[in-house]
């Protein structure tokens, strides 16, 4: 049976790891906090304001690919096939596309033709509007696309992305739990694997995500979750609740 994935998501600003609190940096931590062997997958995102996918970030991707034999997904500011090719050459297994779909929806199509749809995760940053509906935000939450997450995910999957990564940016860093309604709504409508991101503050939140929705993986960005013991304890908690995970 396929296991539910526990995915570590790390964000980097100019090559320095920080914990997102709605995209405000916190520089105290380093990549040394990460347990390479208990995580099922690692996501590396470049959130630098300028010089996206810089040499510094590529060094980090390379570091992870050389030191942990788990799948690595990377992105943040991918604009062209050249960026994509560079990331794959550096050790990325899957690229994460987000804002570029706003200006260049064909990019996902091109990547899927060359590398296959299994090599693309489409990340979707969502925000709840005052009327209760959701809208998709791009450019680190600065531009409102006026698209609903469902419409946006339709575009992404039709263009050939293999997985969807759903984030409510208001929950991001809140430690109050995932946006289960939003994530449930997407997982029920799409046939590809869906990953939930944003808001995990404790193991119960991760359990709720797996219990309530049909996600394939839970991403956590909370740096305190990245030490060896804590990931193991998360997994034994989930196991005790009958969630199928890899030990």
């Amino acid at each position, binding site marked *: 049976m396929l*296991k539910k*994935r526990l995915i570590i998501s790390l964000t980097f600003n100019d090559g320095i790891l920080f914990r997102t609190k709605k995209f405000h940096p916190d520089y105290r931590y380093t990549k040394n906090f990460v347990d390479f062997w208990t995580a099922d997958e690692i996501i590396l995102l470049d959130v630098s304001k300028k010089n996206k996918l810089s040499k510094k970030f590529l060094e980090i991707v390379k570091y992870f690919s050389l030191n942990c034999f788990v799948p690595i997904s990377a992105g943040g500011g991918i604009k062209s096939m050249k960026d994509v090719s560079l990331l794959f050459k550096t050790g990325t297994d899957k690229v994460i596309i987000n804002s570029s779909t706003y200006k260049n929806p064909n990019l996902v199509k091109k990547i899927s033709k060359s*590398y296959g749809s299994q090599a693309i995760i489409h990340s979707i940053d969502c925000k709840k509007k005052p009327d209760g509906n959701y809208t998709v935000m791009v450019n680190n939450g600065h531009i409102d696309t006026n698209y609903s997450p469902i419409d946006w995910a339709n575009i992404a999957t039709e263009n050939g992305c293999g997985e969807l990564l759903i984030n409510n940016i208001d929950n991001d860093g809140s430690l109050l739990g995932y946006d289960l309604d939003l994530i449930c709504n997407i997982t029920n409508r799409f046939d*590809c694997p869906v990953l939930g991101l944003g808001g995990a503050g404790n193991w119960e939140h991760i359990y709720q995500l797996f219990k309530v929705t049909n996600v394939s993986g839970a991403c956590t960005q909370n740096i305190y979750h990245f030490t060896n013991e804590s990931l193991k304890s998360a997994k034994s908690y989930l196991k005790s609740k009958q969630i199928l995970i890899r030990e």
Partner: protein
Amino acid sequence: MANINIVDVGVGNLASLCSALERLNISFKLCKRTNDFQDNSKIILPGVGAFGNFMKKLHERKIDKLIIEKVDKKKSLLGICLGFQILFSDSTEYGNHKGLGLIKGRIKKIDSSKRVPHVGWNECVFNKKSEIFYNVKNNSDFYFLHSYFLETYNKEEVITYTNYGLKFPSSIQKQNVFGVQFHPEKSQYNGLQIIKNFVERC
């Protein structure tokens, strides 16, 4: 001399496979053209992307023919992911394409109630013994990332099966030809053991 020839036709991520071999202290050579291949070395054929495109790249460089010749001369070959699928006769990915035809079988799109692609850690259940699974326990987890699977095959050649709504062969051996649908270079200890076994025992 390099122990392993790695086929490198410029698609996808070879960095992890290389670092896995480095970790195991196994020397290797990336082979972009036929004259890069060392005579007495085993071959690893990693691959991602589309079946037809990958086969075309091998054909343009005449590497397809070379691999078949090496296998005839009893050199061991390990296909990984798309490199596994390409060992078989043909595939229906984006039209009909011929594979290397080293093993009889057909590749088809996953058509089940499950989500596609099949992504994540799943179990390999033993069907027969093979040196490539030496020191690996039955039902061990490996990392999968694929939308196509081996649909028709010879049961005697299947080492392990994996369940994902349907039961499909996740590893195979026909004499000196080995193939794994999962990514050993992404499957931590178990995956490194598979690579080590191929180099040392197959």
